[in-house]
């Protein structure tokens, strides 16, 4: 499941929550993950819907949305995001298949532990990047 945040508008298209969401999407909020998924509630008009989507909302729901509808909306968004996510990545000689958790290096099968796989999956997910120790050390104590 992806990380979701929720905001309630309740008819106010100029709500500060949307400004915050735009800042998040623009990368203007320090230490915040700009790709965090946003659920916006209280979207009761077309103009509010347009504003919310333009601001970066991933799910928009009306004020009358029941708990079941909110859960269904979030699950639907999560499913769409999973489908859209690239399952394999390659950087240099390293190829990582996330779906089957397999790694090849220079075309040869490469056996890894779970944590080693997670490390290689992380470092191959973005081209030409140096990963800080803190980024990679998160979770190293779990295995």
């Amino acid at each position: 499941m992806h990380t979701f945040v929720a905001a309630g508008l309740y008819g106010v298209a100029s709500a500060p929550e949307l400004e915050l969401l735009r800042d998040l999407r623009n990368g203007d909020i320090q230490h915040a993950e700009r790709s965090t998924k946003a659920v916006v509630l209280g979207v009761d008009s077309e103009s509010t819907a347009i504003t919310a989507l333009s601001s970066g909302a991933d799910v928009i729901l009306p004020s009358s949305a029941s708990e079941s509808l909110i859960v269904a909306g979030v699950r639907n968004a999560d499913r769409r995001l999973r489908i859209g996510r690239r399952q394999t990545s390659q950087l240099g000689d390293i190829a990582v298949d996330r779906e089957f958790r397999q790694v090849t290096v220079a075309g040869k099968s490469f056996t890894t532990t779970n944590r080693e796989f997670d490390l290689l999956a992380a470092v191959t997910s973005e081209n030409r990047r140096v990963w800080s120790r803190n980024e990679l050390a998160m979770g190293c104590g779990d295995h």
Partner: protein
Amino acid sequence: MADNSRALDTHISRLNIKAREMGLGPLLDNVWGKGYAVSTARSDQNLGLGL
């Protein structure tokens, strides 16, 4: 956090040892002791970013 950092070094060291045993070069480079990059993809262009 210090334990995690040591564990990270151990994991990466093992990865590089496995690669060497397969006749390959190291998979990950330690960059100035502050971070890691895939050896074949490292670029001096990114060394100043956020470390």
